[in-house]
């Protein structure tokens, strides 16, 4: 209607720049995913919902779903609690310190998850450093093992995924004008009020993407739980891996994979929507 309105996305030649990425994702990701989904719905006699009915009819599998979601939620919470203040420190640091901090955050990403998981195995064992510190500080009476416990798994996974929480929040915090908070202060707002009504809503987009990254990575992690907690704690992804690799039961594997995908997408999309709504109402 108005002369300045953007051209329809279908006519915009710039949109064509996304074509290689779209094509790549279609071929490598979307079609196989669709195939996986179809596989989970195909029985010996055609279309069937039986794999889902029998999977969800088994209480043990609900425990597996619970394990998966609980651990992913804890990892996300721990990453947020550590990562949110760290992102501010990073964004407000001087030039040299900022580079040092960025390198410190990004460089560990080049060390594979397997290596880190092995390192955590040393840290979390009975005579490991965590146990020694807690005994030394008087929290524990005797050395205890954190390795192969849920706490150990959450600590290890949070360490591995932390950069994916810090970096998106950092990129948003960097753009916030510090004077906004000062302006609030001149108007008599308490620090807590300024945080809740100025800073937090402005950082919400960063939080949303950080949470989405960390949650979806930790809900689907496979190598880390198999090394830090072992075979006695099944999650949807370890169950999927085993169905394909060991039991050669492609139908069970594709069923658990689809359930995992649906749950992860639902939670990420749902929490994003919720965050936007809450964010919208406070600003």
């Amino acid at each position, binding site marked *: 209607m108005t002369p300045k309105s953007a051209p329809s996305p279908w006519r915009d030649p710039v949109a064509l720049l996304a074509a290689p990425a779209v094509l790549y994702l279609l071929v490598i990701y979307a079609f196989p995913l669709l195939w996986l989904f179809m596989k989970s719905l195909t029985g010996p006699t055609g279309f069937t919902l039986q794999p889902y009915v029998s999977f969800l009819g088994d209480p*043990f599998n609900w*425990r597996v779903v619970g394990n998966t979601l609980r651990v992913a939620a804890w990892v996300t919470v721990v990453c947020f609690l550590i990562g949110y203040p760290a992102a501010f420190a990073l964004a407000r640091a001087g030039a040299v310190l900022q580079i040092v901090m960025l390198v410190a955050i990004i460089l560990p990403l080049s060390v594979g998850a397997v290596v880190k998981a*092995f390192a955590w*195995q*040393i840290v979390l*064992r*009975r*005579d490991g450093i965590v146990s020694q510190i807690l005994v030394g500080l008087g929290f524990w009476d005797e050395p205890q*093992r954190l*390795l*192969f416990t849920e706490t150990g798994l959450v600590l290890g996974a949070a360490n591995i995924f932390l950069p994916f929480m810090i970096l998106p929040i950092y990129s948003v915090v960097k753009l916030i004008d510090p004077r906004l908070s000062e302006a609030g202060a001149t108007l008599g707002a308490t620090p807590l009020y300024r945080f809740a009504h100025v800073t937090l809503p402005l950082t919400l987009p960063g939080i949303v993407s950080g949470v989405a990254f960390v949650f979806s990575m930790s809900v689907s992690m496979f190598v880390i739980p*198999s*090394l830090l*907690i*072992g*075979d*006695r*704690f*099944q999650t949807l992804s370890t169950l999927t891996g*085993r169905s394909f690799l*060991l*039991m050669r*039961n492609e139908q069970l594997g594709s069923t658990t994979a689809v359930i995992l995908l649906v749950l992860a997408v639902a939670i990420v999309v749902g929490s994003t929507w919720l965050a936007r709504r809450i964010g919208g109402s406070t600003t």
Partner: protein
Amino acid sequence: MNKSKTAILNRRTVLAAAGAATAALAAPRILRAQGKELVVGGAASHKNFVETIIAPVVEKKFSCKVVFEGSRSLVNLEKMQKNKDKQYLSVVMMDDPVMIPAVAEGLLDPLTVAKVPNLAALKPGTVHMDGMWCNYLQPWLGIAYNPKAMKTAPTSWADAYDPKYKGRVILPSLQNTEGLANLFMAAFLATGKPMADAQKDVDAGFKKLVTIKPNLLTAYTQMPQAYNLLEQGEGFMISSAISQVALERKAAGAPVDIAVPKEGIFAMPSGVALVKGGPQPELAAGYINEMIGPEIQAKLSAATYSLPTNKDTPVPAGAPTNATIFGINWKFVADNRADWVKRWDRDMAM
């Protein structure tokens, strides 16, 4: 100018590389056309002993060339399935559990004493399903332990259940082949029946196995992790460990040793078979015959810390001599394993 030159060079490099790759891929075919050649499929981990111990003897005796393709048991099965009409493998070396589907799909030719005379010299229980395959080695399962953490070596499979080892015992997951031994041994300890009957009483086995949970440090799927824990002293013993792995660590100087429990040890599956319709069938039979003959058996068992299957071959130094050796009924395992793994998940969960 400069830029276009680089581009041309790149194109040339790519073309040259492509040509080299084609030549490399075609080379085995050219070799094959030249003389007698025997293609053997096996696991990647077999490559070393096939090429240094078996191939030299076979090549000299039959003046042929042994080509070894190392992958995994399941990959060998797929190679045979895909080439059913025109096999190029003559011999396959696979784990026993994978031999069963190969037999079911008619991919193997039975071994007979007429074709493979040394078959007659094999220990009882090492020729399976009327000669469809035989075992050329018996790596064995005992209890690996850390001699620094445990002053006295474990003497019985029941030791892993002793409350004094709370949180110190490592088990293989039931999805690892070596993990099956624990289930059968638990049934044996619980029922007191002979092993052949006890291993069918899986229910009793699970009921006993559950009582080990307070002692469990972890159930592993990745073996290096288990040895890492053992060598660091966090774990005291790996109940049902493969002799070859434990003794290789010991030879490397790690604080690891393997005990032979008084009840006995389990023999692990290392099978060899003739591919049905494979090229050079006589040569293939000759290869298997040499493999289970006394000369190669002695070298092979020493190099792999395993037991020979030829009864005329002396047991290598350091290997158990008088221990009872339990076999595993692989057909029964193949039919039921998926259900057992399911039950293991439920019963052994934290």
